[in-house]
């Protein structure tokens, strides 16, 4: 595995000198790439290095650094190596390159990101409403979205929750039982 990973890193470094590598154990390769280089980088990985399978696209909201991070996770079926490709984009003006012509299934992840984080993907197939219907607030997976405040504004609460009774304690008190020692750690 070590030799396969080293040859992979050497090949990627030769093609993309500015990609930053980070060492990980096991079968994981990890690179950080500038956002403009992403489509070329991904299609090179797919066509030349055998990372044919797009496993997942993850996203992170780095609100302190005013950035979104997108992580493309690829898998090479022949070499049994997974490749993580990180990139950061600006949080104020989140626009990212569309890659659904490289992998069509990336379209689903991009639509989710558009809805949940508000990232725009120009020229994406089917850029319309996906999971959230009738949504007119800020995208809900942003960290500055306060879900409890939204719920208080949109839905109703039934009274009775605010006393927050422990079910086990209330029932034992009512029936006059003792809570056994092994169960005490589960009570509040």
């Amino acid at each position, binding site marked *: 595995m070590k030799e396969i990973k080293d040859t992979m890193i050497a090949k990627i470094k030769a093609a993309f000198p500015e990609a930053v590598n980070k060492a990980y154990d096991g079968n994981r390769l990890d690179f950080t790439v500038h956002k403009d280089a992403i489509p070329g980088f991904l299609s090179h990985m797919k066509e030349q290095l055998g990372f044919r399978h797009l496993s997942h696209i993850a996203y992170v909201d780095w609100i302190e650094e005013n950035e979104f991070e997108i992580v493309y996770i690829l898998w090479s079926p022949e070499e049994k190596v997974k490749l993580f490709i990180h990139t950061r984009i600006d949080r104020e003006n989140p626009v990212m390159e569309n890659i659904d012509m490289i992998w069509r299934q990336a379209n689903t992840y991009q639509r989710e990101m558009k809805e949940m984080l508000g990232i725009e993907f120009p020229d994406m197939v089917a850029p319309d409403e996906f*999971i*959230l*219907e*009738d949504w007119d607030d800020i995208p*809900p997976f942003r960290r500055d*979205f306060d*879900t*409890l405040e*939204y*719920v208080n504004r*949109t*839905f*109703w*609460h*039934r009274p*009775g*929750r605010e006393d927050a009774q422990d079910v086990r304690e209330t029932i034992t008190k009512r029936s006059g039982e003792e809570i056994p020692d092994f169960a005490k750690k589960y009570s509040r």
Partner: protein
Amino acid sequence: MYNDKNSKKIVETIQNWARSHSVWVLAYGTGCGAIEIAPTMTSRYDAERLGFRGAATPRQADVMLITGYLTVKTVKRVVRVYEQMQSPKYVVGFGSCTINGGMYYDSYNTINLLDKYLPVDVYINGCMPRPEAVIAGLAKLQQIIREGKANGAEKYLENLDWYKANQRKIAPKWIAKAPDYNW
């Protein structure tokens, strides 16, 4: 048939008695509660001996069993299904999520109180309610049908504006396109 008050009452009593013994259930199983429907209906608990059986479509069903949480997206479909059902029709809220939101009370896309959007006849408490609790809830429904107190559908018609206003609050674009409930 005589049309005076007393004979109407007698006919209604007989109708309600018959309805309470043939309750066809449409299980709207999008929440986790759907997992409790299978043992309730099959040989272990066998709810069919009490007169409950599954219905294939909304138009054949008497009871809509709403099993668990409803997202904003599914509550629209539930309203649509409920409006397609033929009277007499009843709604059973199943599990804590329909009562007060349950463990999803602070989620941005699940509703908390089902009875703001649909008239609920019986609630079954629990997370999850066991099949015994489901059968107890359905038996309670039979009892209130027999007493003539299960009048959720009339309540929905009388307070249609209030229910529609609540539905419009969470689904403004959809309600505008939906057909009128006027039958």
